């Protein structure tokens, strides 16, 4: 069993009247257990040169009669995305299942759980996909990683 620890510290000496210091740390477990997560995509670095939204993390559905159900719904997945641009005007729009979460501006990162939820539509490609759309086509760098409990990989063609 692997041990993965995620920690966050937020500090500011001038946001409020007294210094702000917030710290959070936890070990990543499989859903509802104290067993550590054992799979990861690795830390990936990507250079995007179009504003077209791409699936950074796609949900692949099982084939056959369960084709509308995500096998890994309710499992534990953790997503890290970082916008490595150094131009403060450049951002990426992050969405889940076509629902906009927010914009990651240059230097921003995000860390969140991902449920791979099954949606109510009978689509085959949109289920909980994490999408990223750069704001410019002149080239933007991103880093991303998923630490997880399981994912379905595409069948070779």
């Amino acid at each position, binding site marked *: 069993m*692997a*041990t*993965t*620890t*995620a*920690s*966050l510290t*937020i*500090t*500011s000496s*001038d*946001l*409020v009247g007294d210094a702000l210091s*917030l710290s*959070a740390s*936890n070990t*990543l*477990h499989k859903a*509802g*257990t*104290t067993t550590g997560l054992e799979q*990861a995509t*690795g*830390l990936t670095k990507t250079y995007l040169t179009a504003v077209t939204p791409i699936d950074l993390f796609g949900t692949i559905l099982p084939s056959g009669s369960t084709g509308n159900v995500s096998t890994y719904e*309710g499992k*534990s*997945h953790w997503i*890290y995305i*970082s916008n490595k641009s150094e131009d*403060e005007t450049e*951002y990426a729009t*992050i*969405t*889940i*299942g*076509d*629902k*906009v*979460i*927010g*914009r*990651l*501006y240059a*230097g*921003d*990162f*995000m*860390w*969140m*759980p991902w*449920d791979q*939820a099954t*949606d*109510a*539509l009978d*689509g085959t490609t949109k*289920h909980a996909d994490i999408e990223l759309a750069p704001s410019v086509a002149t080239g933007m760098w991103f*880093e991303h*990683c998923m*630490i997880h409990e399981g994912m379905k990989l595409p069948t070779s063609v």
Partner: protein
Amino acid sequence: MATINATLSVTSDITSSGLSINDKMTMTKAGTTTGLEKTTGLARRFFTSTNQVDLLTAASGIAADVPTDKLSSKLYIKNVGSDSAQYFTIGKGNSSGSATETAISSDGTAYYRIGRLYAGEWMIIPWDAVATTGDITIQPSVATEMVVEYMVFFE
């Protein structure tokens, strides 16, 4: 202008070579290098039912001043519980107000589930607090008392 720094560290022996993520961001206003200046403060909320409700309602309550037009807002949420089987389901969009989760629609109009926060887990995301469908929803997994802490930094 304030200076707010957030530092993320992920360490793991999940691969034979380990895995390490270290990142730092200074929270700035959209498209600028000017620091964010506003916050809701760290809020703490208790739940005693499994109803899906708004944790943050866009343009309302403690989020009344959070921009609704795709500017720079950061949202932090933590499940401060200690029972590893209990979790909050976090989503974005319209809450049902009942124990039945709002139907998830992949066209993104009404609601989409983001993920679960089990005991001790936390998240930090940008928040596009668009009016009407930009609410942050929360649903406890049990009706016994569960506690969440959350905070928004915004421009």
